């Protein structure tokens, strides 16, 4: 180490991309320092410029569109903005390295793990590679070194990336959403590994994440990014316990919490979206969304620095909590949707209790395993779901939790009819056939077909007369909080949250008796996730739709479900009313899941 100065010193950084629609101001004057060995979280919604800041430090900004850089980015005292490509390449690995969200995108699929680690280390023997892999907690490292990336689980792949990042003893690691694609249990372990690796070796870590809970778990210091600036910065404890900037307060509030203080689908939401990065900003960028905004906020920025703490708010600390039940984007009563459709209206007879939305008895699903070599005997099939009984009451809400591979999605797909059960029965209640919301909303919409058309298709399939379809599409879009223009838009033209709303719109255009959701919000920013969860709960209430909700996010389960079912290895190991499960978990696996949630309240303040 060259001295006592910061490893990374960013001062008044501006990053602007020229685009056809005008300049995109990704970073608008951000400053951030990281001391040697320090673990710093950079938190904010997507589009806040956090990744661009990290990529600038790495010298990995995309070439096209050409970025314009202003300001200072000193990596261990040397400027990265004026550095040549050559210099930057030389410094990546030795001075700075990175771990990204998607290890599959970063690993070469046709090269063995060991060879890639050796390459990253700038040459290493097999023993050294095994040691590096072992140091990141990879079991049977010699064996795994011979595997190809696709043969490893997501968690292991991310460990391999960490091993590669550490291989040349850099001074700083930038981890950009390193655990976003992983399950809670794995997520916690990978975060702890990152923190431990960095503390043991004195490597500084910049953890870029949209999830304050993730940052809270391991960071000494947290910086909150908004619209390309760092709007608040302080020690983790200061920020979480006494946030000064209203945006930090909002971020904290929109995280579903395990303590259930905001259960029942009324998560406070941060209304609106971050400002358009193409527009110039005057005054506080957060003002349009800020409950405490006043005339002063339109004036020049107020920057307060006090020891370790720094914020850019005219009224720091005005907001101690986010106003409850904030405006629900798109919360309009979908009355039109309720108009009974003769074809699909459930045969409700007065006085008879409504039938359950679905009853599953002894469901089993096996998958054939591939033969290890062409003429081998076929191996015994793999059992993804091993005899599950489940009932979702009329208009009820059941959450299925469990880590990936536990059979949740397979069960869901059998229930909606996308997969045949190997054994057992699925009995659906009366009403329109079940619909499903997928994790990746973008992928669940046909890319070239306008949203309106996709909704209309479902209406046509249920014999809604063509004269009524237009009005119904419009009413549905309104009910899920999408603008009318969304009707003619293709999915690509919508944001991630809007796409999920569009997928929901198609599913409820004729309300189904059962809406199956497979991780519907795990790909969304916290504030968007809260909005979508609220929307789902609201639709359930107003349209009598039963929800079956698969998630690995226990906090989300708590927010929406009446009953929670815990799955492990294809079986249900525990089921209980939501409150009971969280306050008094019975099964050890449930306790493990609960303990693994990155939780702000349970945070041990790092020394």
């Amino acid at each position, binding site marked *: 180490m060259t001295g006592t100065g910061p490893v990374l010193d960013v001062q008044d950084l501006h990053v602007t991309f020229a685009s056809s629609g005008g300049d995109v101001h990704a970073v608008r004057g951000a400053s951030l320092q990281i001391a040697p060995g320090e673990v710093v979280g950079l938190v904010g919604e*997507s589009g806040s410029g956090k*990744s661009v800041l990290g*990529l600038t430090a*790495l010298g*990995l*900004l*995309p070439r096209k569109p050409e970025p314009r850089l202003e300001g200072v980015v000193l990596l261990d005292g040397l400027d990265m903005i004026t550095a040549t490509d050559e210099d930057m*390449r030389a410094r*990546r*690995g*030795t001075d*700075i*390295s*990175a*771990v*990204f*969200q*998607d290890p*599959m*995108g*970063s*690993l*070469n*699929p046709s090269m063995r793990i060991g060879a*890639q680690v050796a*390459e*990253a280390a*700038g040459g290493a023997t097999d023993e050294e590679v095994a040691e590096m892999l072992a140091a990141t907690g990879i079991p049977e490292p010699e064996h795994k070194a011979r595997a190809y990336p696709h043969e490893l689980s997501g968690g292991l792949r991310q460990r391999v*990336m960490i091993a*590669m*990042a550490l291989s*040349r003893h850099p001074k700083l690691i*930038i981890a*950009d*959403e390193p655990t976003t694609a992983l399950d809670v249990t794995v997520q916690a372990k990978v975060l702890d590994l990152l923190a431990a690796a960095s503390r043991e070796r004195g490597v500084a870590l910049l953890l870029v994440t949209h999830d304050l809970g993730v940052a809270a778990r391991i960071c000494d210091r947290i910086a909150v990014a908004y619209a390309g600036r760092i709007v608040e910065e302080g020690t983790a404890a200061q920020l979480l316990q006494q946030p000064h900037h209203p945006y930090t307060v909002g971020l904290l509030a929109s995280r579903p919490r395990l303590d259930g203080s905001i259960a029942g689908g009324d998560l406070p939401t941060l209304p609106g979206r971050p400002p358009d990065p193409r527009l110039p900003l005057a005054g506080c960028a957060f003002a349009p969304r800020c409950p405490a905004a006043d005339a002063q906020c339109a004036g020049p920025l107020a920057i307060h620095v006090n020891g370790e703490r720094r914020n850019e708010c005219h009224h720091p600390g005005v907001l101690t909590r986010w106003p409850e039940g904030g405006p629900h984007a798109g919360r309009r009563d979908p009355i039109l949707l309720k108009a009974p459709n003769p074809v699909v209206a459930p045969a409700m007879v007065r006085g008879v209790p409504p039938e359950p939305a679905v009853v599953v008895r002894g469901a089993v699903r096996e998958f054939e395993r591939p033969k290890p070599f062409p003429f081998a005997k076929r191996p015994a099939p793999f059992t993804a779901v091993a005899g599950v009984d489940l009932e979702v009451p009329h208009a009820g809400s059941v959450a299925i939790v469990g880590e990936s591979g536990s059979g949740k999605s397979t069960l869901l797909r059998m229930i*909606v009819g*996308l997969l045949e059960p190997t054994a057992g029965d699925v009995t659906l209640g009366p009403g329109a*056939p*079940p*619909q*499903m919301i*997928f994790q*990746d909303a*973008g*992928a*669940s*919409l*046909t*890319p*070239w*077909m306008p949203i309106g058309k*996709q909704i209309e*298709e*479902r209406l046509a*399939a*249920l014999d809604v007369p063509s004269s009524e379809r237009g009005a119904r599409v419009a009413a549905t879009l309104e009910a899920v909080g999408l603008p009318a223009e969304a009707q003619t838009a*293709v*999915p*690509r033209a919508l944001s991630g949250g809007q796409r999920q709303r569009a997928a929901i719109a*198609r599913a409820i255009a004729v309300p189904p008796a059962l809406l199956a959701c497979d991780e519907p919000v795990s790909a969304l920013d916290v504030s968007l996730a809260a909005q979508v969860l609220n929307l789902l709960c609201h639709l359930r209430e107003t349209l009598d739709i039963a929800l079956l909700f698969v998630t690995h996010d226990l906090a989300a389960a708590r927010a929406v479900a009446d009953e929670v079912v815990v799955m492990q290895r294809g079986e249900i190991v525990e089921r209980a009313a939501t409150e009971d499960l969280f306050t008094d978990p019975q099964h050890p696996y449930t306790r493990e899941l609960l303990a693994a949630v990155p939780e702000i309240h349970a945070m041990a303040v790092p020394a």
Partner: protein
Amino acid sequence: MSAITRVGGPASRMWRGRPALSPGALKGETVWHALIPVAILSLVILIAPVLAPYGGTDVNPVGALQSPSPDAWFGTDEIGRDVFSRILIGIRTSWFAALGVILLGTIIGGLIGAIAGAFGGKVDMVLMRITDLFLSLPAPVLAIAVIAAMGPSLRNTLIALSIVWWPWYARIVRGEVRALAARPHAEAAQLAGVSRTRLVLKHLLPGAAAPVIVTMSLDVGNLILALAGLSFIGLGAPPPAPELGAMSARGLQYLFGHPWVPIAPAAAVALLALAANLLGDAINRRLDQRTTR
């Protein structure tokens, strides 16, 4: 944010998945717009023979084997026909023959590929076996067989070429359809109650449009060359049809005394193929840009 998929590891490769699988960019019109330059070039070529001073088999009064002159721009051949006029007509024939084979290949291949991709299983296996069988046929041998059976004519040459050409398209379409069928949007459409035919036509097939158009546009040049090659070895239209390959083959004996007779049609083939390739590249780049963004 595509930037996030980049790697920071020092020497590790910047590896990125094939972008074509995110057909997000494929808004129908954009894809078809890419074909506008082909349509314009086709129009120009269509009217080119109108500029020809003589017919394809007419004799230029200047006489046989005359050097290029203002009366016969590219000279005349052994029986006094105007080389310039014959080339203009030959270009039109080559161009539209190439487009015809490609169109036919796309239709047949697209149909078979779509069925194979949408049904999967046994149907897929059988259809793809058949496709591979055709793919393994060498074009000249097949052309000889077809012409031996049906007699030499441009039509028969085109039939022979179509037989070896469609399997490429079947493969591409099948691959894209299979990949798209595994995406959640196909399942979501199924859950929405969309019929099987509609699923294939509206939710799967359009995703194959961009790769197919790119292949089509890059194939025009290939086909012009293949056609000229076959016609050069005598597997095209019989004389006296003005066909570029045959013209340059028959003119070869005059290469030393009257070089324009074989060289002018050969140069026309080269230029036409070059133009087609440049166009194909441009279309390719344009669609590629839209899909990777």
